[in-house]
């Protein structure tokens, strides 16, 4: 079984660091960044199977970031996380995400790991 590589993008460093470590314990290799610019820079140089994006990011929304990443790495899959559990966000999120997944913060690590494996 090949190693799954994931990019985590969220402005809370503590959160992405811990998530990356926990995914690592589950056999998923996770890199993390805390802003959009760094995320775009990273995908240029390294291949990832899945990107896990926060919907609300400083200066750019997660959905915008998705479109930018897709132009650089068209085969990449996406999973969205959001702290705003509103109905509008969820509908907007699922519509935009298309075949992507949409998770509410705080996320359950097992279901996140399952989704990542499922997508790949």
């Amino acid at each position, binding site marked *: 079984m090949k190693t799954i590589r994931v990019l985590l993008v969220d*402005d*809370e460093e*503590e*959160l992405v660091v*811990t*998530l990356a*470590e*926990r995914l690592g*314990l589950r056999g998923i290799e996770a890199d993390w960044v805390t802003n959009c610019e760094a995320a775009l820079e990273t995908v240029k140089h390294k291949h990832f199977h899945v990107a896990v994006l926060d919907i*609300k*990011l*400083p*200066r750019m929304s997660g959905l915008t970031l998705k479109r930018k990443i897709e132009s650089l790495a068209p085969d990449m899959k996406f999973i969205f996380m959001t*702290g*705003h559990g509103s109905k509008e966000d969820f509908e907007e999120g699922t519509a935009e995400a298309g075949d992507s997944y949409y998770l509410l*913060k*705080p*996320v359950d*690590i097992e279901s996140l790991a399952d989704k990542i494996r499922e997508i790949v």
Partner: protein
Amino acid sequence: MSFLQRLKPDFWDYHDVASGPYKHLFNFRRIWYLSVLLTAGVAFVPVCFLAAIDYQVTQKAIESENVLRTSRLVSNTRRSLSFLLLERRYALHFLVKDNPLQSLTSPGRLDEVLKNLQESFGGFTDLGIVNALGRQIRYSGPYGLTNVDYSRQKWFAEVADQGSYTSDVFLGYRQSPHIVIAVKHQPLNGPMHVLRATLEAERFHRELMPLEQGVGVDLFIVNSAGVLQTPSRRYGRILEKMSLPVPKYASTTQVFETQRPDGEKLLIGYAYIAETPFILMVVKKKDDLMRPWYKARRQLITYLLISITSILIVVLAVSTYLVSKIHTADQTRVAALHQVEYANKMASIGRLAAGVAHEINNPLAIINEKAGLIKDLLQQQDIIATRSKLLAQTDSILASVKRCATIIRRLLSFARKTDSTFETVELKNIIENVIGFLGKEAEYRGIATILDIAPDIPPFKSDRGKLEQIFLNLVNNAFAALKDGGYLTFEGRKISENIVEVAVIDDGCGIPPEDIKRVFEPFFSTRTKQGGTGLGLSITYGLIQEIGGNIGVESRPGKGTRFTLTLPLNPDIKVK
């Protein structure tokens, strides 16, 4: 508590702090004064005016009535006196013409004529015939004056010259006051002779007495030298000089007012009786005459005082009642204003809640992952080896919990403060608190907040809750106006010993010039479709007034808006 204090209405010492620039409208004591003055003035002026006119008219009417009455009395009396004398003179004329001298001088005839005169006219005392030489050749009467020589007396010369003569009252030979009436007869063929009659002066007095009606009326006759011809009640006895000056000659009845040296005012009416030396005089005391006027005047003044008192009572009662009602209405308004302020605050909290929830969610997500990692580590690895790693996770959990607690405390402290309480506050701290609420939104939208607060602004006494609400309202407005990536600047500086100026400046869409005058009006909103109530800035205005400050606004469409607040460093001071 004194009686006056108990009467004092509620509004008397009331000061409305929330009335803002229209403070003078809510000075109830002033409204009361104005209402009392105006209504009392409007009522008093016509009442006093009418009273004054009535006073004048009544006084004049009574005075002229007195003059008229006096004049009538004088005229009537003169006529009857005149008639009394003329009638007797004409009778004598008739006698002397009808009876030839021989007949009058025949024995017993003069006695008979005297008797007839006394019976038909009355008042004649005696009768005599004086010949052309002035000797009384016949006499009939009680004094035995036959052969008395009158040739040297003035009256004889006058009767010879004028044809008739009426004398003053005098004592003469008989020592009793009397008047002489003499008439001359000049037959065609022979010397003249004179018929001389005397009248008791008492007769005049008797004629005048019934006319002396009324209190204080003095009716008497004087001659042209001022000697009393009939007794006067107050100005001398008969044949004495009267104690009043002799009035100057006039052909008709005259009435005039005069004042005696002792200050007594008199109303004097007089008339010269034609062809006699007599002046008829009526003297009345003004005080007695005006007595009915004094009574009327007392009634008028009493009526005026009662009217004024009752008007005043009604005006005071009505004004107090109405102003009390306005005051009650105003207090209801103030209470409603406070409710609106509270509602505004609750709405602010509602708006903040979404941001706060998100902010709490982030640390919660961290806690979730950290706790999850601890569980993972405990399940998979040797506890001793991972001890330091576990400790690091718990520290991170504690820090995240602290973060949540701070956010919650901030929201609670803002929600709690609804009563006006003054405490020592720091301007920078308050602004940071407010920005803290909207920090995440600013971050996502890329809005930069710049705090430029001068370090020399000391901590000052103010109402923290109100200040926070003021800044929150302004920052909310600024956020609505700002585009993503805009700038929000706070500038604070001390402009005098007691005043700080804080400007909240955004570079957002700005306010059109036609709207700028109305931004502080209640219910004025350009964002009604986005749920704006139009109350935010009007409440902000009220809040600033309440803490003694002021607010102004400048804006350029497309360039940005600047709200400038002036705040007192001492709660007892009001910024103009």
